[in-house]
């Protein structure tokens, strides 16, 4: 009974949090309309918000208790967790399900709301009205209540009991109190450290876009048209930093875990967060224009509002199921699409109406900015960012157009572009060139008044220097497309120009250097992206004879190569050898060869068939019982290039629900990454087919021909110890020692046992993995001195491998780091400006 109470409490907390957010919205609204700062409504509103916050924490705690204690009578625990899941991945269970990810989002809003209440004075009431109103919508997504009489379900509760979810399935008729013994587990792809930190970061990014939006709406509402920018700016910068880092973490996770071959795939789910980020960055630039010159206020407002609305739109895209088969990210439709659409439309209309009503009163500048002013160029930059965003969203929304047309009863067969990567890159590269060039030029208009002569004096040296540097890069890199050449030149220019500015600024006040640092980072990122994507090179080109596909030489895709176990295969300038499959063992630093282990059925244990050592230290002795981690199999592949050699361990999991899941292994060099993953293995379903046994009766010294190998029976010896078998002193055991000669030399020692006590005989066959051979010791004829063996053969072990070289990828990560550092510098500067003004009593 107590178990059920946890879920009931959880559900109660959800309902309280929903009602409290409604109350808080109303109370903050009244407080904003009243006079004075600490009116009675304000106190009441804060209490309501804290009740809301406390119950959200209650919801999180209840859900965690359910997952942590494996209460599989709840659907959430059953479908997202399992008994063997480590505690640190239990956190990931929260965001595997949609309900949990809404919860995470709500939680961040509570944290941000609490901070905003404590740092703001005059802004608190109108700001929090918007905040709490958003919370009303979000908490309604997880409320899971059916409205009586209307039969409309609102939200999907994470506390739904499995029995209610499944309905009338037979097992509940047999046993109404049935509780599954184990959950179905967390998606193995999510069992990765990046998946513990990526979703919270991304959702913090989502949540923080609400802050500048709320300031903007509060400014429009309270007719403080210009004042909202100062407090909103540090938050907008913070949001851009967090959202940007969140997006890149997702990319990095995809690069490390999925076998797509890259960090960015123009997947709708990725695009849906990239677009608001671009608009947010554009918004920040227009906010800076306003702070410097008083211009572009209306544009700043529109962009800040659009950023938040785009976040809502992306939520709608990814969670309503509308993307369907056009995305690799699977999202189950929880029937929330209607609710999500209402959420989106309410904010679109409210924001639009408010803007229209106040439009004429928003101060603007009549005079046009001179083309020799900084503002002009920043404005152009912001425009380019918005156009880049528009290009991505126009194509990503294709499934939405189709849905709209179908709702209007118009038949439509429109599908997303086939060559998505080309479609997006062909546009985005030109936007990137413009952005790189502008972020270099823009920095030279430090002083408001510039003229042709001054500009030329300032720009000549950096321009010349970047031309020289990019010539050198072009000479070595052999770039052939005009767009690539321009992108490199523009990126080098922005790095040099901003580097010079940085040097000037840092001498006087490093606090002002944020912009320069961030723009250097952008330049580096663009170069890293260009080389790692534009010049990624497939190493695993298959040059072996092809049987099926002679008819389509142009269509041929030879990206994957077959590697027989322990056979050297040449590809490009590398020599590759697949050395065998490995598993990880507890307390062992490397990977243990599978053939050295006798895997037991229970509790992830195995027995060592031989001594297992790592770098000359013996970790396990023959016969030791070892704890292994059998989920992942690692395929050891030796890469050799001249004198240089290294080993990669791409891994794969055979998962009962998802089949073979391959993840890459990456060798990191200073100037490039070597990325490799397994595309196929002999029996991904885990079943092995052996041929019918052939029997041989031979004497010591006789030879057999097995799979192109000569097998010599060297001797038969009595042994006292066989790994994995309990021998009593009365029992007898012998092994036959085979030497197999061919390209290489192998040994096989099948064993024959006489278990006196159990009145049984037994055989322990030996499998030679490299040759796909199984030898079983069947029978001993002591009179004739003859021995009988059964030999089965199977498919020789192999893997299909894909290997890609990605140059300069570290430049991308370095650039990312600099962008974040630059943004942090800018955040501290802008935040201290806000605090100064607030403490003067102005805000």
């Amino acid at each position: 009974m107590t178990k059920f109470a946890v879920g009931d409490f959880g559900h109660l907390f959800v309902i309280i949090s929903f009602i409290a957010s409604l109350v808080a919205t109303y109370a903050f609204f009244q407080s904003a309309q009243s006079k004075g700062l600490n009116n009675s409504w304000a106190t009441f509103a804060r209490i309501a918000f804290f009740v809301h916050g406390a119950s959200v924490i209650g919801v999180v705690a209840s859900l965690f208790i359910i997952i942590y204690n494996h209460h599989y009578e709840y659907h959430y625990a059953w479908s997202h967790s399992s008994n063997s899941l480590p505690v640190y991945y239990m956190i990931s269970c929260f965001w595997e399900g949609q309900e949990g990810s809404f919860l995470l989002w709500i939680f961040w809003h509570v944290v941000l709301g609490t901070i905003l209440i404590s740092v703001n004075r005059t802004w608190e009431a109108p700001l929090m009205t918007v905040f709490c109103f958003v919370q009303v919508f979000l908490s309604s997504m997880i409320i899971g209540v059916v409205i009586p009489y209307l039969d409309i379900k609102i939200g999907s509760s994470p506390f739904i009991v499995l029995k209610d979810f499944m309905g009338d399935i037979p097992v509940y008729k047999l046993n109404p109190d049935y509780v599954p013994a184990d959950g179905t587990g967390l998606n193995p792809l999510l069992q990765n450290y990046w998946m513990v930190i990526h979703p919270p970061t991304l959702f913090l990014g989502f949540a923080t876009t609400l802050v500048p939006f709320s300031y903007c709406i509060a400014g429009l509402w309270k007719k403080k048209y210009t004042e909202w920018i100062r407090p909103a700016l540090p938050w907008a910068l913070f949001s851009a930093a967090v959202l940007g880092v969140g997006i890149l973490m997702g990319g990095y996770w995809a690069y490390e875990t999925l076998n797509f071959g890259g960090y960015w795939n123009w997947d709708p789910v990725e695009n849906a967060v990239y677009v608001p980020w671009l608009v947010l960055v554009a918004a920040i630039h227009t906010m800076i224009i306003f702070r410097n010159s008083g211009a572009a206020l209306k544009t700043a407002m529109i962009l800040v509002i659009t950023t938040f609305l785009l976040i809502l739109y992306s939520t709608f895209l990814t969670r309503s199921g509308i993307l369907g088969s056009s995305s690799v990210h699977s999202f189950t439709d929880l029937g929330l699409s209607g609710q999500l659409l209402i959420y989106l439309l309410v904010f679109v209309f409210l924001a639009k109406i408010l803007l229209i009503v106040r439009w004429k009163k928003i101060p603007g500048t009549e005079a046009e900015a001179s083309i020799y002013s900084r503002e002009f160029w920043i404005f152009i930059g912001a425009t380019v960012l918005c156009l880049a965003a528009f290009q991505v969203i126009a194509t990503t929304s294709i499934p939405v157009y189709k849905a709209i047309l179908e709702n209007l009863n118009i038949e439509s067969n429109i599908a997303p572009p086939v060559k998505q990567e080309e479609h997006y890159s062909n546009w985005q590269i030109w936007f990137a060139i413009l952005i790189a060039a502008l972020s270099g030029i823009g920095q030279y208009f430090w002083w408001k008044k510039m003229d042709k002569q001054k500009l030329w004096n300032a720009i000549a040296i950096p321009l010349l220097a970047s031309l020289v540097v990019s010539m050198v890069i072009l000479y070595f890199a052999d770039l052939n497309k005009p767009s690539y050449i321009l992108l490199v030149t523009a990126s080098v220019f922005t790095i040099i120009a901003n580097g010079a500015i940085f040097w000037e600024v840092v001498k006087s006040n490093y606090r002002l250097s944020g912009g320069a640092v961030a723009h250097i980072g952008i330049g580096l990122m663009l170069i890293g992206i260009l080389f790692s994507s534009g010049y990624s090179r497939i190493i695993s080109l298959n040059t072996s004879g092809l049987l099926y596909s002679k008819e389509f030489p142009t269509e041929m895709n030879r990206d994957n190569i077959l590697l027989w176990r322990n056979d050297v295969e040449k590809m490009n300038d590398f020599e590759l050898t697949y050395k065998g499959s490995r598993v990880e063992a507890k307390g062992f630093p490397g990977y243990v060869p599978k053939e050295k282990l006798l895997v037991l059925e229970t509790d992830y244990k195995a027995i060592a068939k031989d001594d297992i050592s790592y770098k000359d230290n013996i970790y396990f002795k023959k016969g030791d019982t070892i704890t292994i981690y059998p989920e992942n199999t690692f395929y050891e592949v030796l890469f050799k290039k001249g004198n240089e050699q290294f080993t990669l361990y791409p891994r794969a999991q055979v998962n009962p629900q998802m089949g073979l899941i391959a993840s890459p292994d990456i060798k990191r060099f200073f100037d490039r990454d070597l990325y490799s993953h397994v595309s196929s293995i002999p029996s991904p379903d885990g079943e092995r087919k052996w041929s019918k046994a052939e029997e041989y009766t031979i004497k010591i010294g006789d030879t057999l021909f097995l799979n192109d190998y000569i097998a010599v029976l060297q001797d038969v010896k009595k042994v006292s110890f066989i790994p994995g078998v309990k021998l009593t002193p009365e029992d007898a055991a012998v092994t036959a020692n085979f030497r197999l000669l061919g390209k290489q030399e192998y040994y096989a020692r099948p064993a024959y046992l006489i278990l006196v006590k159990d009145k049984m005989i037994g055989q322990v066959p030996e499998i030679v993995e490299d040759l796909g051979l199984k030898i079983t010791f069947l029978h001993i004829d002591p009179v004739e001195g003859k021995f009988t063996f059964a030999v089965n053969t199977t498919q020789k072990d192999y893997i299909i491998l894909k290997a890609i070289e990605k140059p300069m990828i570290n430049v991308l990560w370095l650039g990312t780091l600099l962008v974040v550092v630059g943004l942090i510098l800018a955040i501290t500067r802008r935040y201290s400006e806000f605090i100064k003004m607030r403490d003067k009593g102005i805000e």
Partner: protein
Amino acid sequence: MKKSYIIGIVIIAVAIGVIVSTAGDASAYVSFKEAYEMAAEGDKDMVHVVGKLKKDTTTGKIEGLLYEPVTDPNYFTFLLVDNNKEERPVVYYHPKPQDFEKSEQIVVVGCVKNNEFVADQILMKCPSKYEEKELKATAVNAKQ
């Protein structure tokens, strides 16, 4: 002419360019019949065909699937039945996608060449793990 007008015109021109390219690059969902008609007319645009794997009606076994990595790891072929129940072979010059057999619905992206549908991409819709039969299976195991 004011600068803002010039900028406005440029923005509109780029936006139109974006829309035109989106419309131009957009593919289409078609049936096998249309895909073969397009090939006959010499239209080489890639299209999307939605369908299911061919399965034996009684045993439910998948028919016509061939992937022999030992002979050629980059050749995979299968039979696809489109929504008009038309059955055609599909060739895919990549390794067999993981978990291919389990997919409920398959979208192949490509075009017809030499009377065969050559897929450039395969999108699979796998059954969600929330399906009832999963629990039935676990329930049976639990009783044993």
